[in-house]
């Protein structure tokens, strides 16, 4: 087995670049509108109304956000559960994205719900019939699991390096001991959380799909189907690896590192089969329910459906099938972006485009406030990612000495 000459380490490049400053401005703009939402209410910032209760905050921040963070559990399943060790290097970035992604799913929910101070209610007030309840509970648990999964990275970074200034220096020793205990404990039990993470992901990714089923005929038949949960799960699994590829390429470009092309190319081999399963599911559902008749009606809805399926699934599927594309950085990047766009579009269509209450007084178009907040959250996520990779050993850098230790996998007896 080939050992990689890579080891995760904090990035040392400087934080602010012109691009980062631009992203910071977008983040700031989002925060301004976010403040407006909490001071003046949802109505003041959004175009939501009694007929359109959910907009892009649920469709993109929660729906798409959750799907695009799926890289975390798919790579965990591949790297840890199936023990494909060569993907070790991408697990940590994927985990960080998932952690940040889900944190912002939670933040998105917190922003969107009217009575945000009651967000903890689902923990003690249960309604087993509600798909949203399941999403809520699973996301809460999964978020906890993600934080636990990330903890070893924290302990690794600070073990033996705790050096608090001033009076706090007295705490250095106990903290260090705590970190050691944590590390040991997590080492032993981590596989529980890894499996739990995958299970929880499968559950809530599908339940996100169940969410809209209850809206019945208010949802356009092109999307409304009882197999929505399956389609959501399949698409989330399919978008996991492209998301990891896209991030890895973006990060290496941004930090001036050499792209981990070999790993990404071999990872990209999984994409085409996963995408085709998703496409098969979607197309066969369409034919079983005979919803293709709605495609003959040439309108916004059918166009958006076409964009979602053709640009977002079929074209990238063809690209991932081609060896040339898989071995080219640009090809990989574009193909991955298309898959991401496809899933983003799918979530947007499911939650926004497809939702057409017959007695709406006016159509829903996302407001500047909603768009600002959504973009703002994405920007903050990017900024936090950059910050985290500077602080914690997330991205693998080439090292000379081969001393690679598999973290939080089931340990071997050897050594």
């Amino acid at each position: 087995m080939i050992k990689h000459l890579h080891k995760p380490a904090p990035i040392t490049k400087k934080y602010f670049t012109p691009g980062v400053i631009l992203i910071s401005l977008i983040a700031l703009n989002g925060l301004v509108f976010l403040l407006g939402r909490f001071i003046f209410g949802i109505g003041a910032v959004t175009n939501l109304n009694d007929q359109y209760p959910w907009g892009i905050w649920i469709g993109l921040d929660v729906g798409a956000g959750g799907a695009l963070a799926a890289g975390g559990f798919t790579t965990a399943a591949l790297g840890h559960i199936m023990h494909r060790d060569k993907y070790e290097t991408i697990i940590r970035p994927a985990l960080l994205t998932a952690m940040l992604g889900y944190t912002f799913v939670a933040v998105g929910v917190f922003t969107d719900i009217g009575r945000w101070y009651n967000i903890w209610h689902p923990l003690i007030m249960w309604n087993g019939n509600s798909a949203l309840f399941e999403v809520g509970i699973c996301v809460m648990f999964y978020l906890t699991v993600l934080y636990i999964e990330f903890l070893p990275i924290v302990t690794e970074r600070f073990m033996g390096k705790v050096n608090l200034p001033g009076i706090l220096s007295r705490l250095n020793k106990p903290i260090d001991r705590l970190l050691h205990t944590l590390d040991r404990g997590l080492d032993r039990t981590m596989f529980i959380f890894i499996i739990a993470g995958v299970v929880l992901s499968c559950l809530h990714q599908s339940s996100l799909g169940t969410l809209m089923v209850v809206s019945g005929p208010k949802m356009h038949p092109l999307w409304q189907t009882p197999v929505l949960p399956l389609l959501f799960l399949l698409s989330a699994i399919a978008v996991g690896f492209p998301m990891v590829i896209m991030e890895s390429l973006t990060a290496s470009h941004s930090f001036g590192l050499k792209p981990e092309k070999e790993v990404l190319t071999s990872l990209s081999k999984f994409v085409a089969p996963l995408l085709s399963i998703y496409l098969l599911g979607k197309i066969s559902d369409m034919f079983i329910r005979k919803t293709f008749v709605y495609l003959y009606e040439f309108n916004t809805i059918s166009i958006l459906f076409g964009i979602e399926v053709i640009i977002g699934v079929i074209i990238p599927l063809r690209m991932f099938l081609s060896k040339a594309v898989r071995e080219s950085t640009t090809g990989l990047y574009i193909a991955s972006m298309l898959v991401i766009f496809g899933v983003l579009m799918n979530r947007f269509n499911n939650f926004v485009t497809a939702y057409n209450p017959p007695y709406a007084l006016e159509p829903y178009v996302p407001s500047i406030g909603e768009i600002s907040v959504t973009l703002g959250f994405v920007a903050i996520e990017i900024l936090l990612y950059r910050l985290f990779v500077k602080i914690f050993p997330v991205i693998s850098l080439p090292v000379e000495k081969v001393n690679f230790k598999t973290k939080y996998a089931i340990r071997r007896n050897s050594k």
Partner: protein
Amino acid sequence: MAQNRRDFLKTLATIGVSTGAISAVTPQVAKAGPTNILSDNRMGVLVDATVCIGCRKCEWACQGAHDKVQQDFIEYENNDVFKKARRPDTNNLTVVNKYDSELLGSETIKLQCMHCDHPACVSACIVGALSKEENGSVIWDTDKCIGCRYCMVACPFQVPALEYYKALDPKIVKCDFCFERTKEGNLPACVEICPVEALTYGKREDLLIEAKKRIKNHSEKYFNYIYGEHEVGGTAWLYLSDKELAGEVFPKLGNDPAPGVSESIQHGLFAYFVPPVALYALLGGIMWLSKDKDKSEEKL
């Protein structure tokens, strides 16, 4: 700190036992949820649209009964509001709209929560704040509500509304079938004030008999259909009209309960926690097996 295979099996077994224990208590957990009673004696209202004169006194009385902002009493006689179709909102729990009618020229029809027998909102509510009560009303507990608006997404009749412009304590609002009034033996405010008794309050089953009688005795006056008798599994509010209401006034809905599909998916995925536990076990198995393979590979 390495973990050997026995440890692994032990831990896996522990998880298996604990999840098994969880699944043992699931019957209760799965039922953990809101009150959802379908009483044989549930009440309802029969709305006879052929009688309604569009005086909008129901709107006035409803606002009075629910501490909403009332307009000038005589403002309700202003027919200009009929120019636009309105929807129930946070201040108008019920609205009267005017629709064209072949037989009568025009027809005014009151809209409000239908109080479904199998309410989608009750099924959907994340915290079980909504409930179907024994007297047929679908009400909610604002203290539980988190304002997620999933009930609004779920409602097939587009009824619940949210106070979008309140930063603190925005409430979900809809017709509550005058739960407080009926508890004290009063009629719902709209039923009480209706000058022509276009609204008849009574036991739902009696109202159905009455509605059928009216259709039979005056077949020339009524469209032979009771809207709400079967829609989404039946609603407490039933409508008689001279024309087909499904389409222009109310959505065309099937006879299956609105939350049916969603609930069966939900219960299918969580049938006594078997699917999640099975998935967990499967993944555990795969992890264990591939670990073995890894080790053997390593030894080579």
